[in-house]
């Protein structure tokens, strides 16, 4: 029999859950704790298969509990209940593979479904602990003030949050923004949390999402350089060596590993076409993506993957004006080079991103599109696409 632990300081809420879960007594046992401290005691005394926790609690809050669980019980899935959960944040956290987030007030049936999914994931070995980026996004979302001590493979770093805003960061070697970018990419992290911020001066003026994406970009570049160096010094990189050079970034799924072709620049036109198609396929596989078009800056379509019936030629022509207008706006207001332009429609967003000097990418997504992941992937692949799509 599986055991689940519900952690919340609202006794009436706990009582109603226990009452509701009686119908599922044959599937799991329910235990409760009124704060993080009590939850830790339960965790130490019983084998818990899944934790459902609120974030705002006295004594030891949900963040401290999450940090504790990530250090001591990385295989236990967690369902977080929050009153500040927007649909975009939910989507962003969804792919972290770390925990599920439920918006308060809780829909009981939704909670039951999530519990069963979580327990199933454990039995199938899918849960891999709480990923740091997801944890940081939760801190931001809940406007938490705290200091986070992060450890990963002997490296140590500190992140300072004031009302959910990342104000400063440091590691042994780096300070401020660069330190934050570095820490955000660490894997197999051990998280400790203090519920006050040890710094007062804001040294980082970029949003957390930017920091995380920038971190991945820098990491990607470093890995690419390592690969290039290795490629030039060895004749053939064996499979194991390749895997070592391309570790998965936190929260990425197995299928999102960089393409093996990334290790060399395509030489022939056929290679370029094949690699372009492969990358577009990767992007098209992302949740909620309806169409991916690679367009020359003059608005003529270079390649695309889209649902049947989509007029990608026309989309390319129209997008050229939108993309050009976005760039012109950047020049006009002196904001520098464009990174991504997004238009949000009733039924989902359209994103434009420059690819080298000659082309740009158009991604059309539905309402369920995972914008955070799409942005990350655009950043990840724009270098390869620029090479492959060079006219």
């Amino acid at each position: 029999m599986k055991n689940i632990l519900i952690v919340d300081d609202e006794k009436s809420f706990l009582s109603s859950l226990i009452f509701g879960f009686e119908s599922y007594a044959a599937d799991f046992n329910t235990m409760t704790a009124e704060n993080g401290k009590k939850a830790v005691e339960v965790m130490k005394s019983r084998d818990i298969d899944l934790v459902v926790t609120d974030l705002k609690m006295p004594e030891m809050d949900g963040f401290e509990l999450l940090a504790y669980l990530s250090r001591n019980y990385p295989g236990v899935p967690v369902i977080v209940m929050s009153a500040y959960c927007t649909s975009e944040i939910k989507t962003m956290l969804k792919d972290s593979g770390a925990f599920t987030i439920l918006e308060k007030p809780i829909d009981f049936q939704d909670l039951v479904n999530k519990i069963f999914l979580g327990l199933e994931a454990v039995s199938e070995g899918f849960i891999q602990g709480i990923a740091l980026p997801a944890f940081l996004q939760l801190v931001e979302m809940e406007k938490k003030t705290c200091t986070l001590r992060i450890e990963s493979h002997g490296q140590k770093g500190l992140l300072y949050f004031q009302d959910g805003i990342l104000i400063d960061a440091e590691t042994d070697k780096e300070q401020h923004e660069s330190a934050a970018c570095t820490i955000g990419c660490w894997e197999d992290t051990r998280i400790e949390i203090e519920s006050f911020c040890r710094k007062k001066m804001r040294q980082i003026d970029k949003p957390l999402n930017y920091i995380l994406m920038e971190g991945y970009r820098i990491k990607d570049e470093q890995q690419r350089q390592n690969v290039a160096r290795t490629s030039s010094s060895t004749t053939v990189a064996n499979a194991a060596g390749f895997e070592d050079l391309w570790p998965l970034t936190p929260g990425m799924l197995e299928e999102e590993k960089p393409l093996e072709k990334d290790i060399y620049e395509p030489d022939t036109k056929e290679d370029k076409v094949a690699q372009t198609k492969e990358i577009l396929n990767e992007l098209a596989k992302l949740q909620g993506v309806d169409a991916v078009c690679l367009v020359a800056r003059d608005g003529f379509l270079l390649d695309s993957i889209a649902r049947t019936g989509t007029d990608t030629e026309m989309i390319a022509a129209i997008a050229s004006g939108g993309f050009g207008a976005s760039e012109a706006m950047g020049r006009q207001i002196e904001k520098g080079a464009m990174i991504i332009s997004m238009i949000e429609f009733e039924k989902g967003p359209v994103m434009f991103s420059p690819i080298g000097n000659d082309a740009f990418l158009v991604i059309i997504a539905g309402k369920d599109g995972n914008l955070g992941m799409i942005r990350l992937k655009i950043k990840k692949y724009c270098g390869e696409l620029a090479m492959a799509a060079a006219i």
Partner: protein
Amino acid sequence: MSEGKILDIAHISFLDMIKIMITMSGAASAKGALIRNAIKTADKIAEVDYPTFDDYLAAIENASNPITMIEGKATHSGNFVFGLQNCPFGPSIKNYTQVFEKLPEGFADFTAEFNKQSNITDQYRVGEGAGVSPFCSVHQPMRSAFAEKIMIGGKKIKIFQLGCKSGSGKKGFAEKWIAESGVSRDVVDKILDNHMCCYYLKVLA
């Protein structure tokens, strides 16, 4: 009493609109829009098949050739190389510069953009140095697109833009298309001495 200078508003608007397009969405996008529009114009004409190359030339002389209808009479200089005496945009440019002295800003960037290698200019064998003004990005692809509606003896034809000359006399050469067509650069240069535009017609096998 003299009426003084009268502007052709259609010409003025077109030239100024190109400038606005460049400002609003960049030279690349503006170039793409003009080329797309020029190519689309060819959809409006009917296909024609001339029994022989001489019949094709005769259609130029009697101004019934679709290409002649858009750009005026071209001169065949031999070996399928043609020269065009007058640029079809000459009157527009003259009309504009008579009043405003110089063409709108941004035209040089636009022309450079047209001469850059791109899939669409490759497809229609234009640009690549043969652009001397933004109007070339309309004229050259339009001529190539019109050529796709023309056959000679049941065989398709292709146009290769070889060179062009600006109103100030500066010549532009499309080295890529000169090499691909096999026409000597000297021949192109000589034709441009007396013409504004030079192209090669290839009858496909």
